[in-house]
């Protein structure tokens, strides 16, 4: 179980170098940051600044070239591949710009996917997934396939999938990048609500100033380095939601 004393995420001088042929492309040049439990953080920056790379490293999907990444007190270097998978399953939820739902499965089956990996019985995971879909307002679409849903609905299914395991940390890569402004508002207010009620830590990579505005903290990444790390007062329009 997670202990209160550890930060949700800590990175120490993390670098990432991609190699193509004989040429090295440094994507991250030394990132050190600390995100406490329950924070709602936006990472902003121009394209190619390395913010998505940073998210993949924190999400334990890719190892850093050097430096340490510590998730809830666990140093990722000490985990083998299987244990990294277990950590992703138990502690981290992912939400992507392109939703990344499995097209041939229904909404509820998509939400069940992370629970299937854990061996949760069909009965238990059905009810948990349906409750999660109800929470994002999509209970009646449980048996629809992603192609039958709008972009906003698909993203809400993806959020339900990310939250069904009750993760400590949710990583979002442009979560509102493919939805209209009305849906963006709905999704953001839901994120704020989950953040407030469950204490889930959110780390969202975004271009959208509206997303950045609702965060208490905005980290600006540029050329593989942290340029700014600002703590803000959250805008009132989200505070009450």
């Amino acid at each position, binding site marked *: 179980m997670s202990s209160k004393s550890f930060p949700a995420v800590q990175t120490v001088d993390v670098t990432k170098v991609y190699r193509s042929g004989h040429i090295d492309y440094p994507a991250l040049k030394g990132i050190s940051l600390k995100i406490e439990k329950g924070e709602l953080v936006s990472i902003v920056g121009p394209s190619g600044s390395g913010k998505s790379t940073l998210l993949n490293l924190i999400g334990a999907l890719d190892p850093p070239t050097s430096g340490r990444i510590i998730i809830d007190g666990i140093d990722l270097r000490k985990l083998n591949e299987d244990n990294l998978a277990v950590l992703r399953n138990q502690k981290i939820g992912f939400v992507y710009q392109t939703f990344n*739902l499995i097209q041939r499965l229904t909404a509820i089956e998509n939400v069940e996917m992370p629970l*299937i990996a854990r061996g949760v019985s069909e009965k238990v995971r059905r009810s948990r997934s349906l409750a999660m879909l109800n929470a994002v307002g999509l209970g009646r679409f449980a048996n629809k396939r992603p192609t039958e849903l709008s972009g906003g609905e698909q993203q809400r299914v993806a959020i339900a999938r990310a939250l069904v395991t009750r993760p400590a940390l949710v990583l979002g890569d442009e979560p509102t990048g493919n939805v209209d402004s009305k849906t963006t508002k709905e999704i953001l207010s839901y994120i704020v609500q989950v953040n407030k009620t469950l204490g889930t830590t959110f780390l969202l990579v975004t271009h959208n100033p509206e997303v950045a505005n609702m965060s208490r903290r905005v980290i600006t990444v540029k050329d593989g380095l942290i340029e700014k790390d600002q703590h803000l007062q959250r805008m009132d329009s989200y505070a009450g939601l």
Partner: protein
Amino acid sequence: MQMRASDVFKLAFRALRARKTRSFLTILGIIIGTAIILALVASSNGLSTGIQGQVGKIGANTLTVSSAGQFFGGSSSGTQSYELSQQDVSTIKSFQGVSDVIPYYSQRGTISYGGNSISGELIGIDVSTLSVMYKGLSLYSGSLPDSYDPSAAVVGYSIAFPTGSSNQLTLNQMISVTLGGSTSGSLTFLAKGIFSAYGSVLFSNIDETIFISLQSAQLLLKTQYFSGLYVITNSAGDVASVQTAIETYYGTQVRVMNAGSMVSSITSITSELSVFLEAIGGVSLFVAAVGIINTMFVSVMERTREIGIMKALGYKSKQIMALFLAEASLSGVIGGIAGTMLGYVLAFMIGGYLPLSGGFGGGPPGSSGSSGSSVTAPVFTSELIVFSLLYPIGIAVLAGLYPAWRASRMNAVVALKYE
């Protein structure tokens, strides 16, 4: 944290169903390969079982001696070949271990009566020994002919009741036999008895044979030389020593055959045949395996992004591998079951074309008298059925191994970016 096996197969089945046509075509390859192996092996099993059954009708303590020039019972025109006479009967009878020597004449010919004309064989033999020679042979009606009546005969079942003809032989009806070979003209007999259906014994079909007494044959064929001798030994254990004694005495002048050596020589032919047939089936299953590998690779490529998603959701590499292997093995299970059913039906269809119906070498194929009932029945052993169900699963899993491994090794970040 362990995935449930039922979930693995449920997800695999969903994935197969999502690509119905492609899955069907892949499985079709497995079905055909499995069906061919099963049908061919069962048919060749049936063939060798049938042949062994025929050989088994002749006792294991029986040897056949014929002059070296004669083999298939036809008359020999070569004058140099050794001719077997009453002298040889006495000689061989004196060998140790011999209990009896039964000489016989045999010639092929056309048997006709009341509008029926049947290609068959005329055998002159001491008819009282027939039931000893051919185990289980019994009279259907009438009686065995008197040895001293040159016009009396007993006929095989198919001669009396030819298929496809409403004319049937009645007792004491006149039968004429036109012999092939050197003897010209036709002989006439009265049917004194009819044998029950018996089937083929190596080299002759009893049901298509007309038997007369040895004395009649000697008289009518105008020869004192026999076509061959049946040598009955005291026990099956004496067969080898008696065979050696005869061969030592006569050298290459005569040909000696025993049921056991016939079984082994024919078994070696049929087992070579079945190895060949199994190889054909094996090749077709190999082709099916290549089909699985191909389909799986395409599937892994197409689902690269899905694999990335599953990795992000916390699926371990071995779980992803298990999912893809489950897809392959499900193809094998479905293909194996359907292929076994198809092969079962196919084996009965092939059986009708195997050359056992008319007596092995006994007559020209499709000779008019052969009854349609003696089709070679395929033989399915339980081992064969189990093999036919499990082998395709094994092949499918092997074929799926490499694509599944490739899927499990995919880099999550790269896979998630895959368009």
